[in-house]
């Protein structure tokens, strides 16, 4: 029997090594952005609004970031542009600042794994934690352990439902509701406030989905009563699902004028569907959120109308905030990034800055 185990193992080994003689297509996209391109910009300057937090209030002691152990807990595997850019940004900035002991974990979309990841980081003696949370709730055990050791936690891109300045330090991220509103503005502009719009929703039960939806709908209701949202179905943030739903949609609702996709992947799936159905670029206006390079290219090609950016490059801002905090400055309880947008006016020039 063991020969057969060996056969099976050998077969898999062959597969693994098969990649060695692989030959993919020549890359077509523009070279990667360099340096500080696409850096995050804070929307509300620190100290102007809302409660703030100082080292004294938090109750910790100052230390040198460069010689400290710093932990970063990523929530999803780096398989989509957003997560790739996010992790890369943290690592790059740490390297730039001379932080030598950065420990990075990845929870592979399993919340229980993220909790253990962070607990292990705490056990390894980290002095600062940057967390990209998979969920907003369920963090109590971790927060208690961190608070006991007075470890400041900065959460990025998603909030944790807990008390700023005591359970965690602060949150840095985009305002998803605002992104929805801005997407609505672009859609209203594209259709002159008249027509039928479909929404490709994100994964159900996700706060990003909820906020991007509510922002869009509220804005449409407020500014363009002539625009009807006649269709909303989940595309689960995935390209294939976006394509399938769009195929169904344009078949049963041929009179649709615009599609709001809650991320770029679904928008690109919608583009494939429209191409397959023989539509021309611009026939149906598409607005999406994220700002990936493929989507910005889509604007340049005329398939997308506009893309609202959700900037994943948290590194500089996160470490800047941490440094300020350690220097004794007051830190706001949330740091909201000002996201840019891409449209036909700037797409071609900005492709290099997209992630």
């Amino acid at each position, binding site marked *: 029997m063991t020969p057969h185990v060996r056969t099976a193992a050998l077969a898999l080994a062959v*597969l693994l090594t098969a990649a060695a003689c*692989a030959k993919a297509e020549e890359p077509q996209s523009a070279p990667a952005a360099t340096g500080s391109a696409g850096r995050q910009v804070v929307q509300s300057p620190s100290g102007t609004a809302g409660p703030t937090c100082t080292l004294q209030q938090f109750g910790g002691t100052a230390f040198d970031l460069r010689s400290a152990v710093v932990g970063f807990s990523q929530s999803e595997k780096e398989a989509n542009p957003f997560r790739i850019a996010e992790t890369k940004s943290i690592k790059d900035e740490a390297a730039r600042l001379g932080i030598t002991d950065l420990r990075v974990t990845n929870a592979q979309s399993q919340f229980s794994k993220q909790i253990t990841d962070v607990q292990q980081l705490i056990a390894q003696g980290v002095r600062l934690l940057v967390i990209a949370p998979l969920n907003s709730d369920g963090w109590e055990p971790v927060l208690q352990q961190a608070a006991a050791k007075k470890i400041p936690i900065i959460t990025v891109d998603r909030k944790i439902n807990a008390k700023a300045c005591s359970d965690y330090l602060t949150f840095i991220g985009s305002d998803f509701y605002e992104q929805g509103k801005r997407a609505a503005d672009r859609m209203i502009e594209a259709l002159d406030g008249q027509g039928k719009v479909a929404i490709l929703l994100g994964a159900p039960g996700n706060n990003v989905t909820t906020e991007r939806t509510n922002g869009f709908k509220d804005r449409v209701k407020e500014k363009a009563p002539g625009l009807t949202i006649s269709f909303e179905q989940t595309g689960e943030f995935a390209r*294939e699902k976006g394509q399938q739903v769009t195929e169904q949609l344009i078949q049963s609702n041929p009179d649709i004028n615009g599609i709001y996709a809650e991320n770029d992947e679904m928008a690109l799936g919608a583009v494939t569907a429209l191409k397959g*159905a023989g539509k021309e670029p611009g026939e149906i206006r598409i607005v999406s959120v994220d700002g990936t390079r493929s989507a910005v290219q889509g604007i340049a090609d005329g398939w997308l109308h506009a893309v609202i950016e959700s900037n994943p490059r948290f590194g500089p801002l996160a470490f800047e905030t941490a440094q300020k905090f350690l220097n004794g400055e007051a830190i706001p309880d949330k740091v909201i990034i000002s996201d840019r947008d891409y449209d036909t006016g700037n797409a071609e020039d900005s492709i290099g800055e997209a992630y």
Partner: protein
Amino acid sequence: MAELTSRQGGGRAAVLKPQVYAWVQDYGVYAAVLALLLFNVLFTPHFLDASNFRTQLVQVTPVVIVSLGMALVIGTQGIDLSVGSVMALAAALTVLYLGYGWLPALAVAVLGGAVVGAAGGALVAYVGVQPIVATLALLVGVRGLANVLVPQLVEFRNPGLIALGSSAVAGIPVIVLIAAALTAIVLFVVRRTTFGRQVVAIGGNRPASELSGLPVRRVLLTVYVISGLLAALAGVLATARLQASDPTSLGQFIELSAITAVVVGGTPLTGGRIRVLSTVMGALLMQLLAATLIKHNLPQSWTQMVQAVIILAAVYATRKRGSR
């Protein structure tokens, strides 16, 4: 029979019900597809457009191809949970080898699927690992492998591969024709070949098949290889259609759709019986159901609930048949 039912009432139920269940198991899926079609013709705008049927058939293709392999595996009383990951691996291999042209890339991808199938089959047939355990290990491992090979979505421009996913012959999309041809082949294999008979015999009673001199292990191995091969092909076709290779999410949960199609088609999970056309119908039923709810703009949770009800009904019908 109907007369007996009405005349004798409850007491007869114990005798007549098995036949009702048997009928539901054999033809229920056809009736359900017809009912759903009728509903849509009446209540869904633009349903009778040719483009609509094209859309539904194109979308159901990967599930159909995967469930053909799944039906064979389930026929042997096994299960193959690795199909979705095999699709992802095929997507990864396709794009990695696209530099040689789309046909060599397709060949490598399909070969990769066969190798994974052989690994699962060897574990099941020769080492004696339970199918659910062996293929669950592959589900996790092969998806990981695919992600290592191609960590993020990669778009491609190869015109041959794009044409495979989007061109049509006489108005019928090529990938639908491929699925139809594969269905015909599997139907032939199951009905007319020695191998097909041996597959169901092994699923029906493995010790008896061994004592009857059937090459039980070889047949089991082959069945898993076929399942891997078909899943890989489905992965290539789905990739061609998406015009991008997405090993992260391609084929996720398709094993559940395939098992559902097989079960709804009346193939019992206890093996010993394979219903190829009904399996295809089962896949179509689920596709139509999802399409109907999307077209009427109902939330996805509805689709899942209705699917759950259909699966329960199908399993119940199979169970009654089995205990007769």
